[in-house]
């Protein structure tokens, strides 16, 4: 759901590190450039080849970006069509990737995130940690990577590399775990097929990949990078929600948004059927019956809606129910939105809306030991035009009412 986008942590930096035969673990490319401090290159090794130098100036890289078969206009159009999923800042810079290099052009003014040397042993670790998701932390950052060691005809038998993503220390990285794994695995396949990473001629495309990962994932939360004719990286970050509590057949789903407006034809068939019967009255097993679907499917569908927090579960309304006030009523009773919504929601159509003091008084008289039926009789609720079912469900949702545990 789109509202989750704001929770996605921002990638501070993406870097590609390898185990260099002569220098040991080193960063080959990083985006943005020079954010991570690398030890000054050994004079002997730099003489050996300029291609192993830290990233080339940005002026040189754009040709590579275009040289690789990157998604062109079609992809951009696809992104635009998905505008509901785009985080707000992306709207201002629809072509952010191409403009990207300018802010990072003055590396000397920026402080380094951390020293690569401090964490290099977790970035390019020995084999027991390879093929596993490794997250290490510095004082202010968290580095997530998927170190890979490929056995082959290399100088040192193994080719070791890692695509690492750098985040703020406090960021919640759950949603990035599959992303980091996938990037590592796809490039492993590329390397095994065509020496994409180890061959000096091809490896420069990696910089373009890093750039696109950094820009697209931060701006659009998704990306599609065509690496060669056969391989591509397709990524989409899904906002992270906790698992919903277990749903029971006797629970009643209550929609918090207008589900029918959101429905699309290509939704899951059961979902389409089930959604129609979510009205705050039907419990799950009744929904399954009405929608003519399997009860376990109905349960799963409801769990799914619950996961996206578009419904909440309430109890079956019965006149024998007992309700009790919860502590939060002290604050909620003062809330303007509760006050304003309550009257129109709980009143039967065509009847006078009772004022808030009266409604609040009625809520305060709901007590354990007193059934709704008794409560209605004592306070003559029927004559006041209040729909008791809506009154209690509003109470459970907004006014901090709770079904009494003893019922």
């Amino acid at each position, binding site marked *: 759901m789109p509202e989750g986008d704001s*929770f996605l942590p921002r990638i501070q930096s993406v870097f590609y590190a390898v185990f260099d035969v002569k220098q040991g673990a080193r960063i080959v490319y990083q985006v943005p450039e020079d954010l991570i401090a690398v030890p000054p290159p050994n004079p002997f090794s730099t003489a050996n080849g300029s291609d192993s130098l830290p990233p080339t100036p940005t002026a040189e890289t754009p040709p590579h970006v275009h040289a690789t078969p990157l998604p062109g206009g079609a992809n951009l159009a696809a992104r635009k069509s998905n505008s509901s999923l785009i985080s707000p800042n992306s709207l201002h810079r629809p072509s952010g990737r191409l403009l990207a290099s300018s802010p990072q052009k003055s590396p000397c003014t920026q402080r380094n995130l951390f020293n690569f*040397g*401090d*964490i290099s*042993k*977790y970035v390019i670790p*020995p*084999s*027991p*940690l*390879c*093929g*596993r*998701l490794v*997250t*290490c*932390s510095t*004082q*202010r950052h*968290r580095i997530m990577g998927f170190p890979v*060691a490929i*056995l082959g005809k290399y100088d040192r038998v193994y080719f070791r590399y890692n695509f690492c993503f750098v985040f703020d220390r406090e960021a*919640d990285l*759950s949603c990035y775990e599959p992303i980091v794994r996938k990037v590592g695995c796809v490039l492993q396949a590329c390397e095994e097929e065509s020496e994409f990473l180890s061959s000096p001629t091809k490896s420069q495309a990696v910089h373009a990949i890093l750039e696109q990962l950094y820009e697209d994932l931060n701006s659009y939360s998704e990306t599609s990078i065509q690496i060669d004719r056969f391989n591509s990286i397709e990524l989409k970050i899904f906002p*992270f929600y*906790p*698992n919903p*509590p277990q749903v029971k057949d006797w629970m009643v789903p209550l929609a918090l948004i207008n589900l029918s407006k959101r429905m699309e034809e290509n939704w899951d068939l059961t979902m389409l059927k089930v959604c129609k019967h979510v009205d705050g009255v039907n419990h799950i097993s009744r929904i399954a019956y009405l929608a003519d679907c*399997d009860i*376990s499917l109905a349960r799963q569908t409801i769990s799914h809606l619950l996961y996206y927090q578009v419904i909440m579960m309430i109890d079956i309304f019965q006149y024998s129910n007992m309700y*009790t006030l*919860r*502590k*939060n*009523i*002290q*604050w909620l*009773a*003062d809330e*303007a939105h509760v*006050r*304003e919504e309550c009257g*129109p929601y709980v009143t039967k159509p065509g*009847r*006078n*809306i*009772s*004022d*808030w*003091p009266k409604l*609040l008084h009625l809520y305060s008289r709901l*007590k*354990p*030991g*007193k059934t709704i039926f*008794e409560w209605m009789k004592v306070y003559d609720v029927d004559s006041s035009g209040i729909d008791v079912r809506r009154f209690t469900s509003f109470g459970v949702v907004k006014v901090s009412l*709770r079904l*009494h*545990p*003893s019922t």
Partner: protein
Amino acid sequence: MAETLLAILLVTTSAEESNIVFRWPTVPTPSPRLTRPRPNETSSISQFDNPWRASHFSDDSELPRGLASLKLKDDSELDYTWPRPNPQHGRTPSFGNSSQPSLSSVNSPTSPQGYGYDDSCIAQDEYEQIMGFSAKFLAQHLCPHRSMCHQKFELVVDDLAFIGHPVCDEPDGKWNFRPEKIKSGSRGRESRELEGSFSPHSVVASPIAEKPLQETLTTPENEWLQTFHLVLVLDLPDPSSAASGNLAKYFNILYEEIVFTLTAVLYQEQVLSNFVEKECNTINSLKDDFIKKGLPLSQFAAQACEISSIAPAIKSLYEAIKSSSVAYITINRLPLELQLPPYLDALLHNHTEQEAGDFIDPFDDDVTFDWGQDMNLGWRLPTVAPWKTLLLLDVDNEVDPHSTLKGPYDTPEEQNLAEGLLRFLETASVTSSLNEMAILLDWDLEVQVYPIVKWLVLHRRAKVVDVVHPGLRTVFSITGKLSTPLSELSNEFKDTFSHPSITPLPRILSSLSLSLSKPTNNHFFASVVKSKELIPMYHEVVLWMLKRDLLLTLHLRIRIVATSELKLRVKSTRDKKLARKAKKSGARAPLDYDLELDEQDLASDGVLPALSPSYFLPSMKMKSRSFSKRFRRVSSKDSGGSEISELNFNEDDLASGRTKGDDLARAEDDGDSEWDTAEDHRGASIIYDPGKATPMQRKWLAAMSEGKHPDVARRFALINQYFDGKRSDDEILYRAEISRKQLREVLHHYEEYLQTFLHPS
């Protein structure tokens, strides 16, 4: 308790090697994981797993249907569970994922002695393997680069999280406190560091600062120890079980409460007396001995606990965390208490959030007492207030606090403290509030009483509860869920209270649950006790139930409603007054306006009449029943469609409403300028904060007292500021310094204007 805690490790490095010196438990076992979701056996749609099967088990498709399902059932366990990568090559068969050859198995140094015998070989394996890693490898990776020492360490590998605070010696090989860094601006460093993660120097440096300088100079020489690192190994909890961000908080609590504190003490002892190195020497030589003899790891661990002081400390810390109790450990004769918040694990479980909602006040900004940062998250502590009290828990029945606290003390201050605590414990009772206790003891509430309360709660010897009425006239409700099954509780209850006149526990709970529906006499005495002679006995029952969290104390909260009759009365009084004045000055009476407007307003349905005084806006629908009775011409539909209330009142409405009539009124009656235009002048409304009542609301409040006894009216004027629906009866009694009877009297006299709410706080 930290359910995720797998093990506690002590890792050291010397110039040559890294080593896990001690671990507890000896064989930590992470919970099993799945490689892919296991389909629900009971559901009829287990076929959703078919694509995976099709791609991985090509044979299955050729088998007849029945056979295929049989076969799948057999190897389903192997199918779904994730085999932990295991670097033990050569000796034990390797599992699935470990297709990549392990360097460590190639590089790991082999000790020639152990290999001749099978037993010792297995024993050696035990020593060398931990959670699928070789111990050497893990030790190397748990001791980070020197520049990463003296700060929070966090490493997550797949499903294992390692949390610690590595510390190292100075580059010259000596263990020293690093005062120069503290001097060079602890402010600067703190500001750079993350919230909550701080360096141990600030803590460690304080004791040393008081000691003479010579002592630090005579630091014993250490020989090999370069780094030591106390690591908590956690089974990474399922991230989807908790709300986003909770995991970081959870880790941080473990880090701050356990790792950081213990490391700080160890560091101090290492600097002062080379303690850690000596202990490691003892444990290491013992370990070598045991490996040579081929004795199992468990025996070594047991032995290590006897001869060293770190090992038993790690062991009891682990056990205390697992049993959610306070860990009392001793490091180099230094007693140390470590504990985790009792509700820490709730952070990881989403479904408990709702229940926790009753304990946490997100809106409570009126915190009179701060538990402090370390007792914030996961403690679920109620706010401490003068009108609350303390329930002493019988933690150790066998130990008499008098005998333990009397014992000889080194300094008179300690003696005083102990005596004070003893006096407090003698005075404390659930029937008197903290404020009353402070008066009895002649102590200052905030300076003397609160710290003791905090100390007792922190050490889990007491909890903060609401005052129980001496005659048990307190209204209780029962809690939603029982922590222990009712059968166990009632057996325990039966054993504790065997007197025949005491009702069985289930019946007490039942009558409590039903009592609340009664309009009066819903308190504990009326619903359960019923006889005055039994009060002392039932006091014990109430204490017993409170200790087990079976009771929720309910509190009365009060709100004031300005009814429509009252408002009309106030208005007509004002109108009459204005009319009299107007007559005197010969101008037209505003009363006429009103009458005219009533007609216009009702007829035109929502169109603002040009001459309406601003206080009389059509948007203020007549909602009250009594009002609509008087003005029968209001159609129900009109009011039905209205969503506008006084809060939606915007500037435009105000501006357009401010017309001639208003000006007239203002010109004529300057003294009446507080006639508030933003109030709803007809329908009933709640005065949300009587303490900050607007002039208009003050008029209404004053009008409520018309015809009341002057004493009651005065009291009402005094205490109505607390009738905001947020203050409990106990708080009102404390703040207004009145008796319960007096409050009841006010409630009775002003019944028509008051709404009462009964709920837990």
